[in-house]
């Protein structure tokens, strides 16, 4: 009788382990490869002309996904990232509406799930959905809270620069467009979701796993003359 109960217990353990492995462990630890082949930079003639200068230099057509080369011009990237090519992939959701937050979160948990950090060549693909609100673009991107030591996420990079006091003034290059951080804000957005003015692009990433604390940074497009 005792042996029978023991057998049942062992069977339950084996089945539980199998179920956990299949439905929890594998999905959470499997490195998913980002498909980068189907995306291309849109022809400039198809750009939506906006007063925001970012709308003139990057492609923004509703529902389209774009992939650009990415680099940090005046700051060091995490040492773990060195030697890898970096790209930025984004999907443009259009003008902000009531449904935008749902679309945003679907994409962040789907196409832009945080496990998708590298492409098939093991190069880094940063990214997230972008929409426009008040003529300012907003990019929402994942943060693994590892400061780039474990993860290859845009949020990790921003979090690292923020932690080092280097975020303000950081220059990044997306395609041929150079952007510079002009402000940042560490805010609990359920309490205060207002941003300072003047930015062409706002990038938001989380600063805690279960909460509303976000690192929000404002970026402006700078011309080659300003860059010199």
């Amino acid at each position: 009788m005792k042996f029978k109960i023991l057998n049942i217990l062992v069977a339950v353990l084996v089945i539980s382990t199998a179920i956990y492995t299949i439905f929890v462990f594998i999905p959470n630890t499997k490195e998913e490869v980002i498909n980068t082949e189907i995306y291309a930079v849109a022809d400039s003639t198809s750009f939506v002309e906006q007063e925001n200068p970012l709308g003139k230099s990057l492609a923004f057509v509703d529902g389209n996904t774009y992939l650009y080369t990415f680099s940090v011009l005046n700051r060091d990237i995490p040492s773990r990232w060195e030697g890898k090519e970096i790209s930025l992939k984004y999907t443009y959701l259009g003008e902000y509406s009531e449904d935008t937050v749902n679309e945003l979160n679907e994409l962040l948990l789907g196409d832009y799930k945080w496990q998708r950090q590298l492409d098939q060549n093991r190069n880094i693909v940063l990214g997230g959905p972008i929409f426009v609100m008040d003529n300012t673009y907003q990019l929402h991107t994942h943060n693994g809270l590892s400061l780039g030591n474990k993860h290859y996420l845009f949020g990790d990079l921003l979090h690292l620069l923020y932690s080092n006091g280097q975020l303000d003034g950081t220059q990044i290059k997306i395609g041929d467009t150079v952007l510079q951080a002009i402000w940042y804000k560490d805010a609990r957005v359920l309490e205060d979701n207002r941003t300072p003015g003047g930015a062409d692009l706002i990038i938001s990433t989380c600063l805690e796993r279960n909460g509303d604390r976000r690192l929000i940074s404002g970026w402006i497009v700078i011309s080659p003359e300003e860059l010199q």
Partner: protein
Amino acid sequence: MQSKLRIFASFLLVFSLTLGLFLTLSPKGVEANNGQGQGQETCPNTGGGWIKIDDLTSKTYEYTAPTGKLVSKVCYKASTVVTYYDVNPPKDKVLVESTAVNPGGQIADLSHASFLLIDKPIVEEEKHDLVLTSMCYDHINMVRVWRVFHKDKSDTYFPIQLGYKVVPGGINSLDKLFGFNHTEATRFTDPYLFETLYDEKPQTVILYWWNNTTQQWVMDDTKAANNTPCYCVKTTEYIGEWSDWTVDPSDESRFVRERVVSNLDSKNSEIVCSTEIEKDYEERDFCPWETATYADDPLCLPTGDGEDEDDDGDVQGVTTEVKGTTTVVLAATAAGDRSTVYLIQSLLMLVTGISLIYVGKEYINRV
């Protein structure tokens, strides 16, 4: 008889003395003395600085001193007359002309001549190799600044008279400089600067120096003016005080305040390179309209014609202004934490493994 003889002897003595005195003081006598001889005396022989040329047969003779020597005194003999004269200033070439007259009334030929030679003084020839540099332009005083220095120390440091020409103009004199020893090594610590007119056009300047020997300007370095401003190459930002908040005349829904941000020359803070007005905005509160309370309050913006209205404009911020403020949405941007997953998986595997081993052992014991 004896007294006559004495008188005659006295007269002869007086006459001889008078004649001797006359001959001594007369020019010919002086010349003869200079020649240390009379009658058949000759000019000094070679030696002691003298060079003697004998056997002359013409009325003139041109003598050229050896290299490094100059003739300072000449002696010549023509007929029976020896003549000395000084050459002042000493020359390296002299022409001796006979002035002696022979008994026939003709100018006598020279028989010989001697020349007293002295060393030629070593005189450094004036020469300059100057470097002209365009420094900058001063748009406030409308001048261009130029700098001059000797190319290297091998250059001569005469008192120098400088001049310049702004092409295509004439030469303008600059200062006469004494002890002008500015070289490239000292160009920063002790520069010699001069100015030309700045007219916002390209300019080329030629530098000259005055050669005292040839009495001519000598053209030296030529340079085109550069486009470097004398001021405001580096600036220091000076931020003024904010003004008081006032209602923005262009938008009554906000306050505005201003301050002047000036960029001052880093070296001379009295020079203002540029100024700009920086503005700061703040939203005005929407107030319930109560005429009695707010009619004269410029800081309170009525929301209508005295009617209360809901204040629903502050959630999304300013939405009409380009690149104004906005709000961010709450998106699920937190990545998962895999450490818990790994921990649970490890525990499950461990317990399952131990259980299997235990059950296997029990099964073997039973069999």
